[in-house]
């Protein structure tokens, strides 16, 4: 029997975050109304290529996605790559994990780099709710398909005879709702706020802090090397630098009708608006970065994904990060307090506050997480210090890239440290990661 030499097990390499780029985020149906996902992602990629002088470079892979996607955009990321000055030999693919898309894309690229499959790559995401894909009326679609399958003209005419005028006027619109519950994400989050008894006042305070932090970050020039102006916009247009707590208090709850009539706590002020925008981050092996003289901002070191049964066992729809983080901490050998920055995506202020409350709750940590003692409190001064989605807006798939790039730069500014990323996603999912320097 001949013995073949087993190929050496791949060594795991550190994955460097070299930088990121995004276009300013814009509230739905405002300045980017006529921009497609491909337009926005192309502009974002091109900005990244320009910043890091990647013209004509063949990157290992570009990975990204969009949550709201038209069928024609089946190859959205590859098509975007072809519209940039990157080498046309750069492969690309689309993926989608709701609001976790951007961070999941970053983990995918990071894992390939870690294993040596590629040397560098770009991860990102884009979303538009302005240029939303509107489908044909479902009945009309079925009729047209039947007509196209028909073998004879009479069969075809019989199928088409079923078309009614109203079918032309009742298109299938995309829904911002959970298919299994019929509730919108805001309604689910209102249920969570009720379960965790999260006060309206605390949600408004978090929203105000988000706007104030983002405004300060702009004033400090934090975003100058993280953003490319687009369509004449240089700042997220959801940001209200002059927002006051009185203004937030004056907003009426908007997700309570079905789940908690007249007792709601989530308002348009403490929930993220529908947003258009795109983001991308450049990841690489240390060798690739060194060869190009590109400084490393930070390293992407751990990730975890969790999902919860939000319609059977009735865990809150957006509670999965509360499960994902402790699992990741256990693997990393860290405690919740071992971080200098916490980037908890503010889908809703209540989502952040429910997650923090859960980690402080003895019963939840014991019964749901199986921990001997609660994860405990975090230092709130370290939370979303340069603003988050409540102020910037939340183009679903673009949020992950925004956060990874922000956090890497924050760690680079600090010199050393560790940051935690937590992103909740539709379908009861959560994507979390650790960035270190």
């Amino acid at each position, binding site marked *: 029997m001949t013995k073949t030499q087993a190929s050496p097990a791949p060594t795991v390499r550190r994955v460097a975050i070299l930088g990121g780029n995004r276009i300013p985020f814009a509230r739905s149906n405002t300045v980017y109304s006529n921009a497609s996902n491909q337009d926005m992602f192309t502009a974002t990629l091109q900005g990244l290529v320009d910043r890091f002088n990647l013209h004509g470079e063949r990157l290992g892979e570009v990975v990204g996605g969009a949550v709201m996607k038209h069928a024609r955009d089946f190859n959205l990321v590859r098509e975007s790559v072809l519209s940039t000055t990157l080498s046309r030999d750069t492969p690309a693919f689309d993926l989608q994990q709701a609001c976790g898309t951007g961070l999941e894309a970053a983990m995918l690229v990071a894992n390939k780099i870690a294993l040596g499959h590629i040397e560098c790559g770009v991860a990102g995401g884009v979303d538009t709710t302005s240029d939303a894909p509107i489908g044909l009326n479902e009945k009309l679609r079925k009729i047209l398909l039947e007509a196209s399958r028909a073998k004879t003209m009479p069969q075809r005419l019989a199928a088409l005879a079923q078309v009614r005028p109203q079918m032309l006027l009742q298109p299938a619109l995309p829904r911002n709702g959970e298919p299994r519950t019929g509730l919108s994400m805001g309604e689910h989050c209102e249920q969570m706020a009720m379960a965790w008894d999260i*006060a309206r*006042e605390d949600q408004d305070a978090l929203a105000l802090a988000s706007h104030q932090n983002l405004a300060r970050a702009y004033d400090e020039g934090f975003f100058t090397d993280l953003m490319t102006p687009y369509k004449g916009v240089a700042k997220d247009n959801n940001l209200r630098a002059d927002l006051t707590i009185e203004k937030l208090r004056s907003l*009426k709850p908007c997700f309570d009708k079905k789940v908690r009539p*007249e*007792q*709601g706590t989530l*308002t348009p002020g403490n929930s993220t608006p529908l947003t258009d925008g795109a983001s991308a981050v450049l990841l690489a092996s240390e060798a690739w970065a060194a060869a190009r003289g590109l400084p490393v901002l930070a390293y992407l070191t751990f990730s975890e994904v969790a999902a919860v049964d939000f319609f059977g066992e009735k865990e809150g729809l957006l509670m999965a990060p509360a499960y994902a983080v402790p699992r990741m901490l256990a693997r990393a050998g860290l405690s919740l307090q071992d971080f200098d920055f916490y980037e908890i995506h503010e889908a809703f202020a209540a989502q952040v506050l429910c997650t923090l409350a859960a980690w402080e709750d003895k019963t939840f940590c014991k019964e749901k997480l199986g921990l001997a003692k609660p994860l405990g409190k975090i230092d709130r001064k370290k939370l979303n210090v340069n603003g988050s989605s409540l102020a910037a807006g939340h183009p679903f798939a673009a949020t992950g890239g925004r956060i990874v790039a922000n956090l890497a730069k924050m760690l680079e500014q600090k010199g050393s440290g560790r940051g935690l990323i937590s992103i909740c996603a539709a379908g009861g999912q959560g994507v979390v990661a650790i960035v270190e320097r």
Partner: protein
Amino acid sequence: MATRKKPAMTTIEVTQPRHAAQLYAGALLSSRKRPGVVKALKPVTYVRPAVTLDAAEVAAYAKVCGFKPEAGVPVLYPQMLTFPLAMEFFASEHCPWPAMGTVHLANRIRQHHKLNLGDLLRVEMRTGELLAHEKGQVFTLEFVISRNGEPVWDGTMTALRLGVKNPVGEPYVSALGGEVDLSCQAGFTAPADIGRRYGLVSGDMNPIHLSAPSAKLFGFRQAIAHGLWTKARALAAMLPRQPIGQAEVTVEFKTPLYLPGRATLWATRQVRGSLPHNALFEVRNAKGDKPHLRAQLAYAVAA
């Protein structure tokens, strides 16, 4: 019919509340009253010795005010049982002033035990104290409702007789002063017919609530919502949709809510108080810059 009993602490038993028309005839006739200086209210108690919490009447009230059936007997409902007693008082010689031109200033209720449909209750009202107000004379009426001899609910109605010069008593002090930060909690409409609908379930057919023409007779440009309807409508939003055990609600009426109208409910639950759940709330105009009423709420859900 009202039947007179023994003097000293006068007690008047009202076994069969009079018809609304009779009550209002009395109230209007009371407008002829021309009291001199009133030093104190005569101590008098009006009693309805046996009133059953009627399911149909409670349901009709709950529907008009926005309470859900699963909330059981609304905590403000027992106030309805006191209404015939208050009207008897206003029409009687025990009330020195006319009913018309008397303003409902504040209302405080306390529920000590959960009430159930079918409960047999004794409803008492006695005259209270006089307080001096810058706009006239304040007087109070005290209500106690008991079940099997045990008090289950009590309330105080604070009324202002406008235009009384040199009012007597301690100065009237608002129980709900001070600035509190409230958040917009909900919006609701006060439909054009709500005065008539609430009038039917409460018995309070005061013309200022019923229609614009009838309200104009009394100097209002439009009909105004019953203060107790506005309070009940806000409570329906503030309270959970389940039966309440103990509750304490203090409300001060600020400005009229004209019908039809839109109102906003502003609230905070970030307050401490006597019971497990506490809140402050205001009903304001649609814009949210003018309060119709301000209230403090404390409650415990029924065990």
